[in-house]
């Protein structure tokens, strides 16, 4: 690659890693400068590695890379924020994994997306600090879809373009948005949406996080909002996500009585 720098510095969040060879790891990162990329970290599974502690999932770090033959090689790493609060709580691990899995699946290794990086960083911060994990997760889902070009249409009917009236509606993942009560039954696999869920989905979609989290949403509507976004996301990805099962398992565990 003539002209391309042999070494470069990135401000990145570690998404996941995979063991490779004797003591190496292939690390998937999301950086401000180059978007998603995979890099190799040599010798990080050895106990004396100076980089291992900076390359765990969810960590925000500055990485120095050199262009290798197949993958860039991580030569130096320095943690900016280790998100310790996320790591010490199973529920938070589940939600952070979900956010990271979503971003990993929806992004490709073809260029930078600073807005998406900042959304991820802010979401990890919010998950670490907040008790209510629904708010940061739901906000991330809707805004990530927007940034990646899959923003669901929630204002007009995607079939007849009619303005949505204040009543229960339908949602079609295939058409990418809301359907009015007339068009809804005509589209196969459309799901019904309550007015309440639609109202809050719109609110989350167009507000800042500070405004969005002010809304007090009951559990039933939260479930519906989560189910609807999950349905839309699964349709777009054409496969199931792994982390929702983990979140469900942890929630189930928490609901069990402590003395068996």
């Amino acid at each position, binding site marked *: 690659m003539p002209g391309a720098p042999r070494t470069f510095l990135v401000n990145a969040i570690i998404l996941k890693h995979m063991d490779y060879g*004797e003591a190496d790891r292939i690390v998937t990162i999301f950086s401000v400068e180059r978007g998603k990329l995979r890099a190799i970290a040599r010798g990080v599974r050895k106990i004396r590695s100076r980089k*291992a*502690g900076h390359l765990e*999932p969810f960590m925000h770090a500055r990485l120095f890379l050199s262009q290798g033959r197949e993958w860039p090689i991580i030569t130096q790493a320095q943690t900016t924020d*280790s998100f310790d609060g996320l790591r*010490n709580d199973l529920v938070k*691990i589940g939600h952070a994994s979900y956010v990271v899995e979503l971003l990993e699946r929806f992004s490709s290794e073809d260029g930078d997306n600073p807005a998406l990086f900042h959304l991820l960083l802010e979401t990890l911060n919010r998950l670490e600090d907040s008790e209510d994990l629904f708010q940061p997760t739901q906000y991330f889902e809707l805004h990530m879809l927007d940034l990646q070009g899959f923003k669901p249409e929630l204002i007009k009917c995607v079939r007849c373009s009619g303005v949505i009236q204040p009543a229960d509606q339908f949602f079609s993942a295939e058409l990418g948005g809301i359907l009015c009560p007339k068009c809804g039954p005509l589209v196969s696999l459309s799901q019904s949406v309550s007015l309440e869920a639609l109202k809050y989905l719109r609110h989350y979609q167009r507000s800042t996080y500070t405004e969005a989290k002010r809304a007090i949403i009951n559990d039933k509507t939260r479930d519906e909002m989560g189910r609807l976004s999950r349905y839309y996301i699964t349709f777009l990805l054409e496969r199931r996500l792994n982390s929702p099962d983990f*979140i469900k*398992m942890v929630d189930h*565990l928490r609901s069990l009585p402590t003395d068996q």
Partner: protein
Amino acid sequence: MDWVTWAYKPFCMPSLPEPLQNLVESFERLPGIGPKTAARLAFFLFNAPEPVARNLVESLQSVKQDLGFCSACFNITLATNPLCEICSDESRNSTSLCIVEEPLDVLALERTNAYHGLYHVLHGVLSPIDGIGPDDLKIQPLLERMRIGKIKEVILATNPSMEGDATALFLQQQLLTFGIKITRLARGLPVGSDLEYADQNTLSRALSGRQEMTG
């Protein structure tokens, strides 16, 4: 030769004789081995004296035929013995149980000669992103083992990584009901390392786990 093979023949790499090609392909399936290394290994074996190749064949067969998992701790053992050497050793402390990710971790801990209790091998760690849940690990047999009631202390020795921590947190929740002592391996600085290069996480844990110097 069918017509497709014939048509593409000039563009294909010159092929190896079939037995050698099969060996190269078998090596390529091993983790961390690419086509070049696979070819190098195959040619080494082709040129090596016969006993070298025969030993390899016998070792491979023996690994698949003669080994199994210990019915108590799931460490690797001879298929003829239901219990591994550690579980059948009566001189070991049977009230202490160390939980590790892989059989190789048992070896590492045994080399320290500092632990004389029993082990339980999970054969993996929880990984929400990769979809590895408790049912994919040997957690149910662990809980059954705990219900017998002999274990008084459990040492969670999963790796100090996000997945290892998640597994330890999950096991802690599961084991709380047994009212036993639950400990986690300490985290700190490796022997002979440099403070300057330690990450904040390790260094802060090393500080909080500091020990008083006595004597």
